[in-house]
């Protein structure tokens, strides 16, 4: 176990290094830079600004400098929100994204997994069709439609919940963005849970248990749930990482000051320090999430343990 941990940690560092390098060169390959603005900056001024931020140096020099800064724990300053430390930007936005993501994930799990289990258990019944139809709503109606619909009805018409705005301490402001964000994930979860459960339910050991007269509920919870959740869990890891690192659509519809908008805006102008900062954070989350799902997979599927 300890060896696995160390090995995954080192692999993670390697992933982050490669990720940094690839992202850096991708940014530099963009056909525009942060000081190429709609209202053109005079050439002599732009050159000055670019040399101020070291953008006139060779790509190699810039790469080593940026990597060195990162290793020192300082990803530098933003070029879009000029001069503001990337750390400050991320530390303001990430807690909001994290909070929204956790609530949304909870919504997704609470809706998605029971629906999937139910559908699998009563396979091809009207209950199955009904729960899958509900699940499909989250996929067929994209968030840029669900979000405004919810805001319009529960916010503006019924006045139950605020139509926009985010306040970390007011649960009312979480509800609509979290539901909008969670529904899509819930749909995937319920479909994958149903599929996984069906695979398990048709395994021989379940048939044996059924034949022995073990009660349905007990079969479900004791025998099937573990194996049945394997595909859903494989999906949850990366989904969770991506959900807590911000969603620009949700943030834009509900004005949530999260990471997604910073990320998109930074890409729009080629703000390398911010892009790299957020990509590194996201990469770390992906590594952790995938490691966690692998562990969860081991727990769900004891047979894997012997070989690892």
């Amino acid at each position: 176990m300890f060896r696995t941990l160390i090995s995954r940690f080192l692999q993670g560092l390697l992933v982050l290094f490669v990720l940094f390098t690839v992202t850096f060169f991708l940014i530099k390959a963009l056909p525009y830079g942060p000081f190429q603005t709609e209202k053109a900056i005079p050439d002599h001024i732009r050159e000055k600004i670019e040399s101020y931020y070291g953008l006139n140096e060779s790509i190699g020099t810039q790469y080593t400098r940026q990597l060195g800064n990162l290793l020192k724990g300082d990803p530098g300053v933003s070029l879009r929100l000029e001069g503001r430390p990337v750390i400050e930007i991320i530390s303001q936005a990430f807690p909001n994204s994290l909070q929204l993501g956790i609530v949304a994930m909870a919504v997704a799990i609470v809706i998605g997994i029971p629906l999937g289990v139910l559908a699998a258990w009563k396979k091809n019944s009207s209950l199955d069709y009904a729960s899958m139809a509900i699940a499909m709503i989250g996929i067929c109606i994209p968030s840029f439609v669900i979000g405004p619909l919810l805001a319009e009805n529960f916010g503006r018409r019924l006045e139950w919940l605020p139509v926009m705005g985010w306040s970390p301490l007011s649960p009312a402001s979480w509800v609509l963005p979290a539901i909008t964000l969670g529904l899509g994930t819930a749909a995937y979860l319920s479909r994958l849970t149903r599929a996984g459960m069906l695979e398990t339910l048709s395994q021989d050991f379940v048939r044996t248990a059924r034949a022995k007269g073990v009660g349905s509920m007990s079969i479900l919870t004791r025998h099937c749930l573990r194996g049945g959740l394997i595909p859903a869990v494989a999906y949850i890891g990366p989904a969770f990482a991506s959900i807590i690192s911000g969603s620009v659509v949700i943030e834009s519809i509900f004005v949530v000051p999260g990471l997604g908008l910073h990320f998109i805006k930074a890409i729009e102008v080629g703000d390398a320090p911010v892009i790299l900062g957020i990509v590194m954070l996201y990469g770390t989350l992906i590594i952790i999430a995938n490691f966690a799902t692998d562990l969860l997979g081991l727990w769900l599927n004891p047979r894997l343990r012997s070989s690892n």
Partner: protein
Amino acid sequence: MSTPVPVEKGSSLWRDAALRLRKNHAAMPSLVIVALIMLACLVLPSIPGLLADPNVQDLPNKNMSPGSGHWFGTDHLGRDILSRVLFGGRISIAVGLITTFVSVTIGVCWGALAGYIGGRTDALMMRIVDILYALPFLIVVILLGKTIEPFTGKLTEWTVDLFAGSGSTTAKVNDTRTWVEPITTLVPLFIAIGTLSWLTVSRIVRAQVQSVSRMDFVEAARSLGLGHLRILTRHILPNSIGPIIVYTALTIPGVMLFEAVLSFLGLGVKPPNSSWGILIEEGSNRMLSNPWLLLFPSVFFSLTLFSLNFLGDGLRDALDPKSSKD
């Protein structure tokens, strides 16, 4: 529904599956609906004089409610929504099926290999997936667009030549161009989505393959001395097919909507042509004052996807090697 599972021709397994599918209450109606929608999108726009030109504008008659002249009403530029939905359907269905096929194929191969081989190879392959997950997708798309775009023009010319034959009349060339061009301009999109959206499939397949390959019947096959490829394709993949089919059916709506996003970055369908994704996107901005702008494309889109998913479930049941024992 294309699935990467090899099935031997004329085997009774295949015939049994078809039989089981036919008995499925949800799958058969779904099949009919999907077939009808595809047929409508494919055939109706080709019948001359039946539908209004999807790109002809009539600004004074914009945002008209559904009525006799325009069954589905008109959009913000006074174009007939019925024909835009049907023409857009061609593009969306093509995008949905092709890119899903590409991405699921890559994902299944990658995930199955990683899960089956295990050890260091698995670690390496999955770390590559981790990197690709975290890469800023938008930048990749912008760069891909910039790199591939110059070639799509050439590709179009080449394809037109191929179909029209060199030295044919201008009219024939133009004719060919009208249907070739919307497809060739989408090639960058196929590449972008296809190559970047297989990551989750690969993780799901890997998890499933890992779990299945430790099961007793696989051990048995191994002890019989069967080759790896044979074990993988004949024993492991068929037993992991459920989640694969389900995820495939789930990928289709995702890529169809994603096409609309990419279209605003210059990679998808070019205006004035449209797709379901773009129609939904345009409709969502006007859904309060003119709900039908959103309603009709959404109905087509959702019906197709509901049906594909139920069809997928039916197919899964039908192909389940153990379901005959039920």
